[in-house]
């Protein structure tokens, strides 16, 4: 086992919320894109809702990241070398990659948001149609998925015990991000009045995401090995229980019934579980 002596970086609530909301923004966009590409015409309203949702959630992310900096006004140093004024990009540093992905993805999220907004009025997409539209949302979805997952890789590419002892964090955050995104989308869908069929599709998709997340939780603990014993302290056990409730209960509800109240409960529990997962991973390694 690798043994390091690392000072915790004091990444706290801003980062936890960024990981959570980044997962929702990226995941919701990807789901919207897949719904648009693979769904039928009845799914169009929910796909549009996904694009309407992604941008506002995404907009919070850079604010959180900037506030977390010791020198918020120097946020641009992430992108531009403040001495040479050339571009800063280090493909081997996930934080550097993430900043660019965040920036590029926000262009996709912005265009898709405008398009969804316009189509809300006119009933059909205003400027992106046919193959171009499909290609656009596909590329956007790739960046969205990256945003939902790279945050785990960012933690792993360090020497911090727990984070750097596993390779599964990016995968785990992505699976959880997709699940949380599906839950967010179905929650908002149910608060409004959309097609029943789209809701059922989201619920079905979330089943797969939850199963994927549960499998990755096992992989996460197996890859940690003895290092995982750190999570045996009562406060971390409590958060892990929240993670399990946020996955197992929604899965059971998805499998058992399609009634309105349990479905909303499932979505809320999924959101709570997704937040608990990021809390326990971020705080658990540092305290």
């Amino acid at each position: 086992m690798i043994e390091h002596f690392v000072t915790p970086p004091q990444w706290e609530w801003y980062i936890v919320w960024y990981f959570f909301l980044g997962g929702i923004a990226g995941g919701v966009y990807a789901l919207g894109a897949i719904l648009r590409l693979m769904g039928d015409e009845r799914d169009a309203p929910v796909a549009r809702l996904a694009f309407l949702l992604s941008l506002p959630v995404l907009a919070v992310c850079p604010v959180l990241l900037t506030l977390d900096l010791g020198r918020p006004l120097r946020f641009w140093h992430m992108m531009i070398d403040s001495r040479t004024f050339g571009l800063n990009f280090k493909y081997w540093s996930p934080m550097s990659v993430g900043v660019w992905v965040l920036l590029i993805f926000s262009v996709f999220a912005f265009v898709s948001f405008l398009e969804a907004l316009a189509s809300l009025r006119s009933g059909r997409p205003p400027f992106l149609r046919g193959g171009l539209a499909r290609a656009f949302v596909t590329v956007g979805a790739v960046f969205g998925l990256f945003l939902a997952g790279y945050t785990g890789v960012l933690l792993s590419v360090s020497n911090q015990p727990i984070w750097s002892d596993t390779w599964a964090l990016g995968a785990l955050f992505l699976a959880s991000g997709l699940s949380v995104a599906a839950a967010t989308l179905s929650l908002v869908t149910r608060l409004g009045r959309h097609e029943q069929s789209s809701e059922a599709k989201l619920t079905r998709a979330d089943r797969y995401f939850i199963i994927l997340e549960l499998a990755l939780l096992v992989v996460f603990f197996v890859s940690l090995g003895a290092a995982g014993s750190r999570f045996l302290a009562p406060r971390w056990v409590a958060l892990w229980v929240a993670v399990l409730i946020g996955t197992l209960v929604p899965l059971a509800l998805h499998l058992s019934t399609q009634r309105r109240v349990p479905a909303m409960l499932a979505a809320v529990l999924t959101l709570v579980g997704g937040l608990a997962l990021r809390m326990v991973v971020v705080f658990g390694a540092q305290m």
Partner: protein
Amino acid sequence: MARTVGFFTDTTLCIGCKACEVACKEWNQLPGHAPEFGDGYDNTTQLDEQNWRHVQFHERTTAKGGVAWSMMSDVCKHCALASCMEVCPTNAIIRTEFDTVYIQPNVCNGCRDCIAACPYHVIGFDEASGLARKCTFCYDRLQANLTPACAKACPTESIKFGDLTTMKEVAGARLNQLRGQGMSEARLYGDTEYGGLHALFLLTDKPEVYGLPPTESAVLPSRNNARGYLGTLVTAALGVVGAVFAFRERGGKE
């Protein structure tokens, strides 16, 4: 005047006087934290944004049943392959003309990625300035052709300063001398770790006793890039397949 400098800290000569800590704080204008009084002589406790030298005190039982007290003045290792420098997204952390690792205070934006990367517990976050801070190897003194404050102040020459190649020779000779005197537990740390450290240590116990990762643990953060992204990629593929499968099924079937 470019040159490759190094420290050689000989723990067998350290008397725990902390002159290095004081000299460092004086020269670098570090106010320091309020001391923490535990059950030992160590009230500095760790390297961080205020403590760029830290004298560790280790008490242990010897093979003959006696008590050995070893002290080590810890410092930034200025690694040839530096974890902090590797992850720094702003390029605030640079290698100087002296081959040392330096955080440019006018570039750092306080993201703290370097803190999670340093395997030696060296860098601390300074709340007052909002910056990550650590030993500069007295960059300003080096530029004026002066010896770093800690090495200058050390009364027993436990901390030696010079060209790195010279330091390696001195360290090797000292190791041979101690081993010749029967001190079989003496060992050198820093010759190979992270491409070779610019702060070598002569130890009388295992590295991890001094908070130094064992040689086989001296690995860089970037080791986790490929497998981390690969796992994420596979998950993305599985997730997309799952979503496609779910969305293509005829709606309202259930």
